[in-house]
């Protein structure tokens, strides 16, 4: 694959000799250090080279492609064999990023087509766009929510001849692509999914006085499988977006039929994986006891010191299927830029099926069962709960203003972060940003911050005149200084602080607090 991509790079440069072809790109050096002990280290150092080529094939046709080479300046060594592997000692990757053909006046004079691997952003809010569900997020940097993965699309936009400020856009995506998840922990995957009450009650069960259970040494393992087959036509996605402009205000109405970018559990199968091992321990203990000798059986069982029990959980994850009806606007009211965006998610019903041992039965009957049957007995139960059965609304409202002296201030309130799915999982977020350029634009200082509070907190407060006791709250913030010493180069120094309580996303990301230094040069 890499040889093919090197071939493409060579081809791009050869093509650049043509007068209508332009080659450019950028080189970014990115150095990060975590702030908190024991993580205070350069956890990431990476160089990203992006090569871009565009060529005007004719007046109406152009092509564009970009290739991204990433060099990770950290060895990934676990075994001695890794020392012989280039990708472990000196890891790098080369990816074809975007590649598409643009055709103006395609079929109709007023229709443009863009076909190929591309990024299409819908919505008018700043980064938190509930209507932008076409391209999945690239969370290889878990703190950069703005990055999207390009995917293959057939993108047609028709502009009515009587008003070229209005447009209707049709998108067809042959195959759904999921989000690229961050390395390490994934707080965005932790959703509130209904669990059988008796399974949940097992966490608080007192097994000390139970003759069999007290001997059990329980170990558990978790396997997660993703059910995703993009070759099936049913994984195609599509959308339509209507752009309107009246009273100097931009409006958009959109509809998307496709899959979420983050999977949800559809099946949880919990099994005791070493039943035969348990049986052999029991049968070994009972080898000198005659069948029917109940007292002897119980005495023999009492001699067993421990019974290892391996509980294996296999979770099958699927990508939820949605209709998303969206609307957004952006306007200027007395110099204040205001916007609003909402996505109404109508899910195809998604249930989770649990298959799990009836632990309560085992607690009460296991000993009798073994005495009577001379083997370990497991009864499995099943239960089904809805994961997504009700529509839910995500929305963002925001405003920006540039104050005298060039202080640019922006505030946004969002109900539902991009990874949150299901009405019970939507939280409230407030984001603020202030930036100011100084020294003739050589420096730009940005201060950003915000917080989150669980959805429903406000309603709870109005009802009870107090905050919930187990309230989860989160906060983030940090400064960022951009320095533009010369044309084509930006040096950035910044820090991100995170924190919070309970189950909040920012609290879970606490250990990602970091300072960063980035240099980017374009050519």
């Amino acid at each position: 694959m890499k040889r093919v991509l090197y071939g493409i790079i060579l081809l791009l440069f050869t093509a650049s000799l043509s007068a209508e072809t332009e080659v450019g790109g950028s080189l970014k050096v990115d150095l990060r250090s975590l702030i908190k002990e024991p993580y205070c280290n350069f956890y990431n150092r990476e160089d990203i080279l992006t090569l871009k080529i565009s060529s005007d094939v004719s007046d109406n046709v152009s092509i564009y492609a970009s290739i991204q080479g990433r060099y990770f300046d950290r060895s990934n060594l676990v075994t001695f064999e890794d020392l012989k592997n280039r990708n472990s000692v000196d890891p790098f990757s080369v990816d074809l990023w975007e590649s598409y053909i643009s055709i103006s006046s395609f079929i109709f004079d007023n229709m443009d087509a863009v076909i190929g691997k591309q990024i299409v952003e819908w919505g008018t809010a700043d980064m938190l766009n509930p209507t932008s569900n076409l391209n999945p997020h690239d969370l290889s940097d878990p703190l950069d929510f703005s990055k999207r993965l390009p995917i293959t699309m057939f993108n047609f936009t028709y502009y009515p001849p009587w008003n070229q400020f209005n447009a209707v856009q049709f998108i067809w995506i042959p195959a759904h692509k999921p989000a690229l998840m961050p390395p390490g922990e994934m707080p965005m995957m932790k959703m509130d999914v209904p669990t059988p009450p008796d399974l949940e009650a097992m966490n608080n069960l007192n097994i000390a006085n139970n003759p069999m259970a007290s001997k059990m040494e329980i170990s558990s393992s978790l396997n997660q499988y993703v059910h995703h087959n993009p070759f099936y036509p049913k994984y195609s996605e599509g959308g339509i977006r209507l752009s309107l402009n009246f009273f100097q205000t931009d409006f958009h109405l959109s509809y998307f039929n496709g899959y979420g970018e983050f999977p949800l559990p559809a099946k949880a199968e919990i099994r005791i994986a070493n039943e035969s091992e348990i049986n052999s321990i029991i049968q070994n203990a009972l080898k000198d006891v005659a069948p029917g000798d109940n007292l002897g059986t119980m005495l023999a069982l009492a001699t067993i010191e421990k019974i290892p029990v391996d509980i294996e959980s296999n979770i099958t994850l699927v990508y939820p299927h949605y209709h998303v009806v969206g609307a957004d606007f952006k306007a200027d009211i007395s110099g204040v830029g205001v916007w609003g965006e909402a996505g109404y998610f109508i899910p195809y019903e998604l249930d989770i099926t649990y298959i799990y041992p009836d632990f309560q039965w085992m607690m009460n009957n296991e000993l009798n069962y073994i005495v009577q049957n001379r083997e370990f007995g497991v009864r499995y139960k099943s239960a089904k709960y809805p994961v997504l059965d009700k529509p839910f609304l995500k929305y963002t409202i925001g405003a920006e203003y540039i104050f005298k002296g060039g202080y640019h201030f922006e505030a946004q309130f969002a109900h539902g972060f991009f990874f949150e799915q299901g009405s019970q999982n939507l939280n409230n977020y407030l984001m603020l940003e202030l930036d100011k350029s100084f020294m003739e634009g050589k420096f730009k200082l940005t201060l950003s911050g915000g917080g989150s509070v669980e959805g429903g907190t406000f309603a709870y407060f109005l009802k009870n005149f107090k905050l919930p006791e187990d309230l989860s709250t989160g906060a983030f913030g940090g400064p960022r200084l951009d320095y533009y010493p010369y044309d084509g180069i930006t040096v950035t120094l910044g820090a991100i602080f995170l924190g919070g309580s309970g189950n909040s996303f920012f609290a879970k990301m606490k250990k990602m607090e970091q300072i960063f230094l980035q240099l980017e040069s374009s050519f």
Partner: protein
Amino acid sequence: MKKTAILTAVLSIVLATFLGAETGEEWLKKVEATMNAPRDRVSTGTMILVDKAGVKKIRKTKMWQKGEDKKLTRFLSPADVKGVTFLSLSENEMYLYMPAFHRIRRIASSAKNENFMGTDFTYEDMTMNKMSEKFNAKIVKEDADTVTLELTPKPDADVSYSKEIMVIDKKTLLPRKIDFYNKAGELEKTMTVLETKKVGKYWTITHMVMENHLTKHKTEIITEDIKFDVGLPDKLFTRRMLKKRHIKY
């Protein structure tokens, strides 16, 4: 040559005497009429940004303009701003397309007092062709070649300056120089026209410099490849064109 200049000056005085002296408002409208005379224009520009230490940054642009309001400006270089395209339809309706973000961003009109892409021109300065809507004009000086106007904001005008002093070239009916005074009454910026040319039947500014006296930063703009009345369609000044890689006009 000298004789011609004297003759022109004498004729001007004689005409003014017989036809009645023109007011400041009329001179300002004449300047606007000159600037707005072409139906449309296409040009390429080189912006040279010079800071107080003498460090230069150079930006190349292509600009399409139709009528008084519609302007489309695309940055051709340097590499980090290449492809950035700015569409202005009115003071309250401005859009910026930044290819890196795949998104067209509407700019709040409160940005009009801000410098345009690091230059010494604000978005407001770029609408010099509509000054009579916002300023009262009175003649403070007149000679054979020039008329000097003092422009003061009309009572309800939303402008960043307390006063502007504009020197108009009587021959070209274009500004030769404008001093911009801020709300504190300080001389903040001076725009000096270094070269004007007649392209076809229209006089136009081809070289000018804007100097900020407070920051000691200046921006020089050289305009080339100017074409007037090429028949630019209205559809060029829409969001559709912001994203187009290739604009054929």
